């Protein structure tokens, strides 16, 4: 009982960490976008204010049970994938290191690929029940795009798996610690393919076809306000952080302490963000085909590299 209680507390600590970092990143991204646009931009804590404001909305609507559960489904994905992904490297010896090993040994990469789709599907259900055509259009776009970027992403992961004969993320981190080489240097093609897939995964321009504010009125979330939007926003922040940590774990050797974690994830996060600021938006089929073009080719190279070396 005590063990479970401690586990739950640790999980909550992880969640709070991810929430804070993810929200801050969101604000910083808005700030950076503003600076690139040659304006001041909002303060870095703007996302917290937004979230709090959404949380303290006094009235709202819902369209039925599935509309409720959509947000909960989304949260499941974020939290469970956060639990599975090791936040800190097993070799790090910071005093809080053991706090963040929640379910690290209970799932592996293939599990992660699948649990990451649980939320979008549930969210899609919620969006569908609202009856708003924009929501459904956004969902089909999102799912199509997912089929697009999943291929280079899986190719990168398979390349890693066949080189190191494991699918466990912890093992990958251990391998990087023991060899002293980050996997992004050990198999650069896999890293490039994964980063290209990441552009789609984070849904910044040119791949922001799901939200598409001007055409789809923010897509799947268009019927959500107040607490629903708050839940989705927090879930999105946590999920963003989880995905970044996954990339850091796989390709950049993980992080030994929180500062390194923040630095690495932030640097990685800047790739889709900066690419997005200066890009217009693709059409859906263009986006899908883009992912099946060069990124897939590089993914094939990664597998070839892994097989040959």
């Amino acid at each position, binding site marked *: 009982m005590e063990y479970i209680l401690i586990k739950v507390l640790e999980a909550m600590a992880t969640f709070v960490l991810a929430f804070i970092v993810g929200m801050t990143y969101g604000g910083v991204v*808005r700030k950076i976008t*503003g600076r690139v*646009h*040659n*304006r*001041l*931009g*909002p*303060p870095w804590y*703007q996302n917290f*204010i*937004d979230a*709090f*404001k959404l949380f*303290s*909305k*006094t*009235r*709202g*609507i819902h369209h039925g049970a599935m509309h409720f559960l959509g947000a909960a489904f989304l949260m499941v994905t974020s939290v469970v994938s956060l639990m599975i992904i090791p936040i800190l490297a097993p070799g790090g010896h910071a005093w809080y290191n053991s706090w963040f090993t929640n379910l690290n040994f209970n799932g592996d990469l293939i599990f992660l690929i699948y649990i990451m789709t649980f939320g979008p599907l549930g969210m899609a259900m919620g969006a569908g029940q609202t009856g708003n055509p924009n929501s459904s259009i956004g969902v089909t776009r999102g799912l199509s795009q997912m089929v697009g970027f999943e291929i280079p992403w899986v190719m990168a992961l398979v390349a890693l798996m066949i080189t190191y004969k494991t699918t466990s993320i912890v093992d990958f981190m251990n391998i990087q610690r023991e060899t002293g080489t980050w996997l992004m240097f050990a198999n650069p093609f896999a890293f490039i393919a994964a980063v290209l897939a990441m552009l789609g995964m984070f849904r910044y321009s040119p791949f922001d076809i799901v*939200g598409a*504010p001007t055409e*789809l*009125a*923010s897509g799947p*979330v*268009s*019927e*959500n*306000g*107040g607490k629903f*939007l708050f839940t989705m926003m927090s879930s999105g922040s946590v999920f963003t952080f989880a995905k970044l940590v996954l990339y850091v774990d796989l390709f950049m050797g993980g992080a030994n302490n929180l500062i390194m974690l923040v630095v690495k994830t932030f640097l990685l996060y800047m790739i889709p963000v900066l690419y997005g600021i200066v890009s217009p938006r693709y059409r859906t089929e263009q986006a899908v085909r883009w992912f099946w073009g060069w990124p897939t080719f590089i993914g094939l190279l990664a597998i070839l590299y892994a097989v040959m070396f």
Partner: protein
Amino acid sequence: MYNDKNSKKIVETIQNWARSHSIWVLAYGTGCGAIEISPTMTSRYDAERLGFRGAATPRQADVMLITGYLTVKTVKRVVRVYEQMQSPKYVVGFGSCTINGGMYYDSYNTINLLDRYLPVDVYINGCMPRPEAVLAGLSKLQQIIREGNANGAEKYLENLAWYKENQRKIAPNWIAKAPDLNW
């Protein structure tokens, strides 16, 4: 403890502060004032530094900017959109058309007084107001929210019969068909 009057007041103060610094704007841009919103939001005047941000749908929005004249047809949609927004919610009237009809004061199909149909929190004068004036108006709105006086939504609910009567005067059949208020 939460029900204690003082703590409630403190919580409310914090909430109002957050509300005033995070205003998601739904621009109802049918009038000529819509052109003033672009410079207000983009690099030159950068309203985002004050916490303003565009909202895509009424469900997410906090404030509705009514940028210019409203015809009988559009006022119906405006009322509909307003009712779909989730409270606390605010209305900002742009330009003299919303205040007194402006140059369309004797047109058979533009309304003259917006505040007979919707509770307006802030009016911005001008034909059209420049972005500076818009920013000044929005700052005023922030100030009102911080003081806790921006209670248009409650006002609308309290005086619903009066508002509905005014709306029915220009759109008798439409009001009968519209569903209830939804918040």
